[in-house]
């Protein structure tokens, strides 16, 4: 029997959702693929066929959310009238919005990525192709439309933005403010700053230095975050310094 692409996609989403639910209920370590299969109403071989390991399932989840987020952006009628900053901000906000119902699950993943040895940060990069492609496209359009001048390190920008995105998610995971409005503010202000930098000629004047600092700060923060639990507040502070001078 031939299975159509869309049927396949449907099964995948069904498995993912039951996996997320089970992981929220039992924790990542105690949730078995077998039980996920049962809850999703598929056979054992089927689930292994889709996801050879629980880790693969995680990555698929992240990719799936990228897909959904991008689909959601495509529904915005006048999205092309958004500024680059608005487009990027919408992309992240939409992803966070999608994560919201699975927040408990995301918290577990974040914990594994940043604190435990299990998942490697680098692995996450394998899931970002769609995200980076999208950002790259937004950037190209903005440059082409002469909304911004071609920034130095143009080719690194999308990856840098991915780093930034991971950091925002990490912040969101720890955010205990009402409706996560701290994250919304962080996003709004930091992107406002980035926008200002892109619009000024600061980058071309002090490009190497500026970019070096920006990237170093980001990476340092992430590094620290990955190794020590308590360092989170430090990152926040650091970020504050970077963003507010």
């Amino acid at each position: 029997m031939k299975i159509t692409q869309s049927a396949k996609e449907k099964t995948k989403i069904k498995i993912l959702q039951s996996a997320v639910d089970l992981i929220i209920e039992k924790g990542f370590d105690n949730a078995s693929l077998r039980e996920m299969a049962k809850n999703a109403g598929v056979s054992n071989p089927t689930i292994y066929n889709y996801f050879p390991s629980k880790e693969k399932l995680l990555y698929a989840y992240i990719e799936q959310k990228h897909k959904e987020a991008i689909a959601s952006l495509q529904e915005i009628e006048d999205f092309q009238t958004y500024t680059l900053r608005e487009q990027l901000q919408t992309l992240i906000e939409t992803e966070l919005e999608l994560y919201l119902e699975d927040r408990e699950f995301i918290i577990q993943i974040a914990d594994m990525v940043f604190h435990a040895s299990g998942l490697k940060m680098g692995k996450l990069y394998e899931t970002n192709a769609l995200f980076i492609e999208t950002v790259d496209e937004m950037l190209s359009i903005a440059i082409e439309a002469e909304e911004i001048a071609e920034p130095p390190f143009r080719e690194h920008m999308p990856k840098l933005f991915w780093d930034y995105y991971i950091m925002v998610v990490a912040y969101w995971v720890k955010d205990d403010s009402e409706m996560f409005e701290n994250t919304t503010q962080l996003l709004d202000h930091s992107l406002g700053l980035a926008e200002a930098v892109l619009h000024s000629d600061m980058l071309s004047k002090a490009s190497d230095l500026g970019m070096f600092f920006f990237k170093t700060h980001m990476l340092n923060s992430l590094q620290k975050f990955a190794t020590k639990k308590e360092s989170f507040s430090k990152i926040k502070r650091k970020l504050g310094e970077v963003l507010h001078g």
Partner: protein
Amino acid sequence: MDNALPTGKLSRGKVVGKALLKIGAKKTKRFVTNGDKTQNHEAIADIIFDALGELKGVSVKIAQQVALGMPFLPPAYLEKISKSFNAIPSINKALVRKIIKTELGLYPQDAFESFEMTAFAAASLGQVHLATKDGKQLAVKVQYPGIKKSIESDMSLIHFGMKRFAKGQNVDHIIGEIEERLYEEVDYVLEAKNCAFFRENIDNKNIIIPKVYPALSSEKVLTTSFLEGLNFDSYMASNPTQEEKDNYAQLIFDTFFYALYTLKHIHADPNPGNFLFLENGKLGLIDFGCVKRVEDDFLTQYNQLHLNLLEEDDDQSIIKQYVTLGMIEEQTEEEMLTFYREIIKPLDTLYKEPLVGECYDFKVNNDFSKRGFEMIFEVQQKQFHSVHKLNEQFLFINRTLLGYYALFEKMGAKIETGYVKNLMKEYR
């Protein structure tokens, strides 16, 4: 660059700290040089409000409330405060989309039939968007996220700053009042309730109050029917006739007293931005963020006092009434008389001036607010050791009225007092 609202305790603390440091330095300098007071006030006002500009958000509202709550503030501050009205955080399209989704559960394109992502008007804590639903035009007011939580830290700066200029007077109760008011103002649910209340109860075909759409509103989003009209400045620029202006002033004046005496509620924010001038002499009333309820007992005393003031009763009997109202503290007769004559009397003389005759022409008396400011300035220069806690409801009514008078003066309008005096007499 877009001067975003600083996040987090730390950066906010930095900005606040910077402002405090600068005040300290100015203070010292004044001691040394004994320089011109007005100039110093101006410089300090500049520093405070520059810092507030950086904190933005709720600060605009605070500034507004301070202006209302502290009639004795030096004019330099008031000026600076009114300037800061322009410092409105803008909400970009990404954020608008996010806020609507968080607050209403749906993205704008799904919650409404159409939704203009670019705002058509600024609000003090956000902005207003045009939308449609079921063929109706709607005004959707959207609040910037995180404002509520910034009230506390912003208020501590204000508290610090104001204590220095209160000359030993206790400002805690005023600060407390302002804070309470702010929490009310950031809550659009409350505003929606007040708006609906006025819409239901103001029975005047020339007053148009928007309809609230509760299903499309929340604490941070307020959806009402859109009123098509001119704001104050555009209206004035459209060269209205004298008769038209007089009619509008009369309508505003009468409606204020009608609400006070009949509904026992006042719309206590005399900002001209809260009026829309519609077709055929109709007036749109918007922004019910600052509505004050008045109690029966208080109103009876307030009314009696003002009737007596208009009847030119002697100071002694007037003072008694002020004591009952909690505007003058019980002291020796002589002390009370001095306080009354020095502080309160200049104010009540000013308040009642337009009410004395059958009509009052602000075009002729076009120095009304100038005299008012000078008088308030003079009063605040006087040192009184005792702390007089002023009656809050009293202050709200009279400061709102003063605001309206200033507006009528700008319009160069004439008002008739017959209807209002009749309301007062009937209430007795």
